[in-house]
């Protein structure tokens, strides 16, 4: 029994979180109790219950049992899919999620909330069940850990008495009575009596790996004989098993089991350590959320195909080399074949790279899916009528990008619902439909992923934003800004504290944080808004963070990479365009603009500043609205580079955005243009 359960538990948790998401989505889509939707929800709950039971999360399994029973009733038409029932189920989903999080991270779920929701579900069941026993159910619910036969709506003790006497070597074959009892627990109220007669008298005869115990179990509930039999299916040949109906035998010596489980006895027979899941990983496990991912099987198949092609190309190249050895006279023809082969190899490698990169790409639906619930909840609280439309959920983004996208998006959608959309009467007064529209759309454009959040709410009042910005000192009294520029001020930190903006026409709360997060992902965010008509936030993000198109260039005898996207142009200096400021700061006049010339070798502390040669090569690059002209010695090729961070083994190095490995195995630094612009302006004595 030394199988490492941790890996399975991780998979179970991951699947359960997905199941919960699914339940949530379907619950929100549940329109008047569509049977197919209910079936889907039921199946999700059922899987979670089963998994939780298997992995020893008894409380979760017990809790889900109630949810499942309720869903089953709805599925059978015994209970209506009324809005309050749906809301209760949504709440149960939240509670389950909290419990699963606690199971993963080793924390504690809010016991009061769990008990309350559980009681509510039991009460709901009690109401609906014609001969229900709400009182009993309540008792069970309050007792916490144990499972309740929530559907035990018959009278009188019904069930099975099970005599189970395993042979001594039962446990050696990997069977564990404890697990079987846990499954039995789910079938009804279980009481367990353990017989210890077979325990050897002296310790010498005691083999701890033998099973010396026998049990008499009493299971109350509606379980059929087959269901009970199934539990013992694997051990029938390794034990003496007798299953008889409870009311068939009435041995006077047997205590009549009470209707509720006996906690003490239960505790004795099911000593499942609640700390087990917590102890299994420590801090390492907390990262589990991001360390594993699900990949579409089609992508893996494509990868396998490509590796197959690569193998073929390789054998073709080997063949050419053999031919050359055998018959050097046909060298011309072979060289031609070699070229073709290398061309193949290049194509294979590129496709393989693209294919591997695509594995990291996940549909943005994983983030979008949480919004129907969010909008449902907030609009309910605020008394607004809002219709949320999701578009392009299957647009793919890099996994890392997506993980960091969730919080900013929640913020923006919340803002749209909270501040953008007006109350129904306000909307009616303005001649708009009472139901407000919020649209969340994702699509690819160029090398970017674009996400738009649109609403048809009241829009933003640029004059008030400007007034606030002037008050906060963000804008000088005589500074003139156009409407677009004014709107972007909402992303400024000074405008973002809650009390300052709550009286504005909305937005702004934490918008600086949103912008910072998006910038951190290498993207940007813009706001457009029209008073009375609504607002549109546009987020642009790079497709992936780990690869980019780079321009290789030589400075001194070193090779650097500059992101192709940052390059404005490359040029040879015209002597008359080089100007000096303060006699030492060289500027280059490009059309009507003066751009500082940066001597990178000096800026990076490699050499002493050197005077600009007569005809120098400059690369004009731009980032964060700042332009610099880098003095370079040579322009090499352009190629895709894989970005590696220096922080893994060292730290962030100012002026660099990481490093990459070139074809010859050498490391080349990737230049951070914005950082270089800052360095050049801050440390001009060394730079110029």
């Amino acid at each position, binding site marked *: 029994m030394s199988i490492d359960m941790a890996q399975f538990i991780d998979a179970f948790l991951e699947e359960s979180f997905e199941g919960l998401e699914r339940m949530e989505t379907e619950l929100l889509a549940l329109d008047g109790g569509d049977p197919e939707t209910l079936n889907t929800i039921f199946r999700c709950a059922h899987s979670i219950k089963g998994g939780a039971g298997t992995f020893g999360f008894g409380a979760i399994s017990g809790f889900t049992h109630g949810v499942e029973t309720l869903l089953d009733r709805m599925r059978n038409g015994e209970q209506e899919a009324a809005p309050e029932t749906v809301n209760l189920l949504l709440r149960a989903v939240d509670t389950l999620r909290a419990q699963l999080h606690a199971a993963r991270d080793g924390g504690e779920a809010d016991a009061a909330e769990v008990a309350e929701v559980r009681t509510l579900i039991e009460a709901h069941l009690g109401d609906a069940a014609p001969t229900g026993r709400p009182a009993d159910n309540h008792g069970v619910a309050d007792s916490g850990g144990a499972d309740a036969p929530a559907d035990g709506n018959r009278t009188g003790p019904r069930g099975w008495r099970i005599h189970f006497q395993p042979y001594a070597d039962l446990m050696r074959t990997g069977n564990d009575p404890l697990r079987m009892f846990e499954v039995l627990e789910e079938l009804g109220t279980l009481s367990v009596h353990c017989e210890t007669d077979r325990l050897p008298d002296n310790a010498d005869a005691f083999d701890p790996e033998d099973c010396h115990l026998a049990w008499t179990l009493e299971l109350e509930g509606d379980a059929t004989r087959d269901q009970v039999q199934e539990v013992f299916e694997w051990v029938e040949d390794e034990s003496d098993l007798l299953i008889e109906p409870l009311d068939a035998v009435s041995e006077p010596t047997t205590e009549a089991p009470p209707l509720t489980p006996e906690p003490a006895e239960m505790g004795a027979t099911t000593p499942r350590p609640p700390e087990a899941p917590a102890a299994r990983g420590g801090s390492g496990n907390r990262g589990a959320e991001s360390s594993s991912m699900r990949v579409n099987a089609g992508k893996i198949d494509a990868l396998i195909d490509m590796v197959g092609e690569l193998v073929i190309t390789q054998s073709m190249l080997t063949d050419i080399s053999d031919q050359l050895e055998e018959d050097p006279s046909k060298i011309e023809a072979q060289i031609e074949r070699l070229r073709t082969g290398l061309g193949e190899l290049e194509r294979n490698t590129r496709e393989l790279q693209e294919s591997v990169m695509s594995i990291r790409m996940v549909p943005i639906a994983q983030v979008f899916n949480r919004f129907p619930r969010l909008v449902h909840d907030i609009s309910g609280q605020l008394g607004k009528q809002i219709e949320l439309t999701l578009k392009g959920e299957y647009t793919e983004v890099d996994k890392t990008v997506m993980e960091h996208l969730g919080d900013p998006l929640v913020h923006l959608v919340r803002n749209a619902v909270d501040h953008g959309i007006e109350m129904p009467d306000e909307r009616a007064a303005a001649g708009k439909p009472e139901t407000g529209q919020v649209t969340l759309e994702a699509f690819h454009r160029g090398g970017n992923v674009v996400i738009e959040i649109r609403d048809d709410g009241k829009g933003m009042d640029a004059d008030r934003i400007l007034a606030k910005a002037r008050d906060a000192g963000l804008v000088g009294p005589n500074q003139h800004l156009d409407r677009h520029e004014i709107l972007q001020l909402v992303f400024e930190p000074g405008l973002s504290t809650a009390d300052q903006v709550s009286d504005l026409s909305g937005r702004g709360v934490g918008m600086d944080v949103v912008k910072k997060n998006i910038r951190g992902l290498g993207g940007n965010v813009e706001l457009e808004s029209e008073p009375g008509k609504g607002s549109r936030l546009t987020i642009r993000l790079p497709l992936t963070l780990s690869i980019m198109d780079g321009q290789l260039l030589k400075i001194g005898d070193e090779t650097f990479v500059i992101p192709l996207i940052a390059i404005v142009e490359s040029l040879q200096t015209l002597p008359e365009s080089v100007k000096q400021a303060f006699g030492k700061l060289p500027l280059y006049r490009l059309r009507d603009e003066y751009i500082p010339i940066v001597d990178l070798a000096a800026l990076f502390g490699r050499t002493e500043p050197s005077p600009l040669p007569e005809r120098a090569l400059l690369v004009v690059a731009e980032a964060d609205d700042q332009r610099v002209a880098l003095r370079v010695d040579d322009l090499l090729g352009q190629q895709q580079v894989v970005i590696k961070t*220096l922080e893994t*083994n060292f730290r962030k190095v100012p*002026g660099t955005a990481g*490093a990459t*490995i070139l074809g010859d195995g050498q490391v080349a630094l990737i230049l951070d243009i914005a950082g270089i612009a800052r360095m050049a302006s801050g440390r001009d004595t060394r730079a110029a």
Partner: protein
Amino acid sequence: MANDATQSIHDPATAGEDQYLTFILAEEEYGVDILRVQEIKGWERPTPLPNTPDYIRGVINVRGMIVPIIDMRLRFGMEPMDYGPTTVVIMLRVVGEERERVMGVVVDAVSEVYSIGADNLQPAPDFGTRIGVNFVRGLATVEEQMILVLDIDTLLGPGLIASADAIEAEATA
């Protein structure tokens, strides 16, 4: 010296004894916990990093990983040495608070592997130089040779990484 080594290697993990890989710097012998040694490589020219202290020689590619290279002589303020065929880089696993890092240290040559008991480690005297006393786990004597046993987590830890510039400023002041 090879004899000494065989003697000490064939005395496997006696209770309370740790194994140390020793290396030579200017004819002195230094030891590091052998469990932290990931591999030993020959010297290759690293890609220099901008505006870092002289002892950070740059970064190299170790099977797709970018690893910084630290020159121990320069780190300890010793005379620099030309890199030659025997110059080696020891790849060490440095355990920090947040994560583990891999760093390479340039030394003159790799020497021996010794088992040294904790009892045989004497506390280091105050060196009062660039080598802070906290970098030295202790002094040991093996076959009449003095070995300075280094604590690499302190030596190559956050101090070196975060305040490399500060250390440099302090050293040049």
